[in-house]
């Protein structure tokens, strides 16, 4: 099991701020604060004026080991390197469609440090050769839309966006695009369709967006957090970044905690941080001293882990995958002893049944039936056969669909039905 490096043992989360260094400053969103207090736009200068080629930028990010922070954890530098070189239009799109229940870190980044995102986006666009980029943001995020727009406007005024930036010959334009209430637009191909003014329904891959994305042109879709950390990596170098975290999961990551916990919030931690130390010490434990029943470690798509499984677990991609779940977006949902897992299942399935885009039969029908059956059981009308039925429906939903929403519903359902089978018994008729 990966352990966090010794030099970090005993230190508090606020000593690991790479991305959230401006937390607590009154005008942290302002470009002036970003420039003065956070080395703002120094990385962009280093890239454009210091003679870094796009290859150099990609190699630096590759060397840092940064993995996509949206959920899938794919290496960011590698993703950039898939974009064909040479002339032709290319696009960079930031996925700010944060809609996974439990997850609120990207909102927090735009609240504290939107310029990190803007600067990271310009650098990433330079690396892949994109003259235009978008921030695709959920329509419900009225404040965040405003904050991003203001940051972009300030960056234009300061000459970090527009034609021939800092005399380097590199031109880049950025815009915000607001979604309209569809969770599935967080899936990259669904997001691209939505940006094209269509239904946000996912498409089969391949072709991957890096080859054929927005308007059929090469497109990179990156999460807010993955891009916002890029300026720090360029400024401080990949080796400095790798000092944080574990060997396979380097760096820090934002973790957001929700549910009945004393100090919910968004914390920056080095990957590999011990989960229970985080919950009990840094987050102050459960409200009212209640006992922990389960944790959903990576947003609602991640299979729940029992309290026992959480003991000795560390917060990094490998350890959580090893425990049969996933780190996902880093959203930790805490479930106390007095909440029935039958109703947790019903709540989760309600969400996925509502959000399935309906293209694939296993997903459309499967999420609907999992929701209906769990509701039925919750009312005390279920039987033992219903338990088997749920398990088999979930099995038939896995890996058979266009996108992973189907798996995102099936995996948590399977985990709850098997790990917490005893909790269902009192609800079953026989």
């Amino acid at each position, binding site marked *: 099991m990966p352990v966090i490096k010794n030099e970090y043992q005993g230190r508090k989360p606020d000593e690991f701020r790479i991305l959230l260094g401006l937390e607590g400053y009154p005008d942290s969103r302002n470009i002036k604060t970003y420039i003065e207090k956070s080395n703002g736009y120094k990385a962009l200068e280093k890239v454009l004026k210091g003679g870094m080629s796009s290859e150099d930028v990609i190699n630096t990010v590759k060397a840092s080991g940064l993995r996509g922070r949206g959920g899938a954890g794919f290496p960011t530098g590698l993703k950039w390197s898939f974009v064909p070189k040479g002339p032709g239009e290319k696009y960079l799109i930031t996925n700010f469609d944060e809609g996974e229940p439990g997850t609120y870190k990207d909102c927090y980044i735009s609240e504290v440090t939107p310029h990190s995102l803007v600067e990271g986006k310009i650098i990433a666009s330079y690396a892949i050769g994109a003259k235009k980029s978008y921030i695709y943001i959920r329509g419900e995020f009225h404040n965040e839309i405003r904050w991003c727009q203001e940051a972009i406007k300030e960056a234009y005024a300061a000459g970090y966006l527009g034609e021939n930036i800092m005399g380097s010959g590199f031109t880049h334009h950025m815009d915000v695009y607001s979604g309209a209430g569809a969770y599935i637009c967080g899936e990259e191909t669904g997001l691209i369709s939505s940006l094209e*003014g269509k239904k946000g329904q996912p498409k089969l891959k391949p072709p991957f967006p890096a080859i054929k994305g927005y308007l059929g042109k090469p497109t990179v879709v990156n999460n807010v957090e993955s891009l916002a950390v890029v300026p720090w990596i360029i400024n401080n170098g990949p080796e400095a970044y790798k000092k944080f975290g574990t060997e396979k999961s380097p760096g820090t990551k934002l973790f957001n905690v929700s549910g009945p916990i004393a100090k919910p919030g968004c914390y920056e931690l080095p990957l590999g941080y011990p989960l229970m130390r985080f919950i009990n010490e840094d987050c102050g434990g459960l409200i009212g001293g209640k006992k922990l029943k389960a944790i959903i470690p990576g947003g609602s798509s991640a299979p729940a882990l029992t309290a026992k499984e959480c003991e000795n677990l560390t917060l990094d991609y490998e350890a959580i995958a090893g425990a049969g779940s996933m780190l996902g977006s880093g959203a930790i949902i805490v479930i106390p002893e007095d909440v029935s897992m039958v109703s947790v299942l019903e709540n989760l399935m309600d969400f996925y049944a509502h959000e399935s885009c309906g293209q694939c039969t296993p997903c459309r029908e499967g999420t609907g039936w999992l929701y209906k059956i769990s509701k039925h059981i919750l009312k005390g009308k279920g039987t033992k056969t219903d338990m088997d039925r749920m398990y088999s429906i979930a099995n038939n939903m896995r890996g058979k669909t266009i996108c992973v929403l189907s798996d995102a519903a099936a995996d948590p359902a399977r985990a709850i039905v098997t790990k917490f089978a005893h909790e269902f018994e009192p609800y079953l008729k026989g």
Partner: protein
Amino acid sequence: MPIFSPELTKTIEGFLTRYETKRSSILPILHAIQDEKDWISDEDIDALEKNFGLSAVDVREVLTFYTMYRQTPPKPYRFEVCKSISCWLMGANDTIKTLRHEIEKAEKEGRPLPFEIHGVECLGQCGYAPSTLINKDRHNNVTPEKALQLLKEYSAKELPKAAVLCATNLAAKAQK
């Protein structure tokens, strides 16, 4: 009365040239219409086709897919309470129940309130649960008590411009 105000017409024209394709402007245009008129009617879609060359089929595809667009006239304030897992764990159902009860009670007493209540999916504020939106205003940690307080506060406010326009348009239509 023209179907879109001069300002809205200008906004729409701006969107049509802002993106790579005209079609990309459909989502922002629908947001803008809704911001001004509170909902999107069949007449609005016809006008988008006739006056701005957007295919009515393309517009309808978007309108019916995304939950944020309203296809019927709404009440002046939409009180949306997140009911997804983190908010649910923190008592979102009680907040929704309390709000519904209060509104029904007021209705029965002959003093209808200008609200609709919706349980919605995650609003991206899970640590400050239950999270809510009233139109575009975010309110967090909305316990049943705080929810009732918000009903009072908003009832005492002047109605939003879009709601007033929506009511005027409906009255004019009814007269015809």
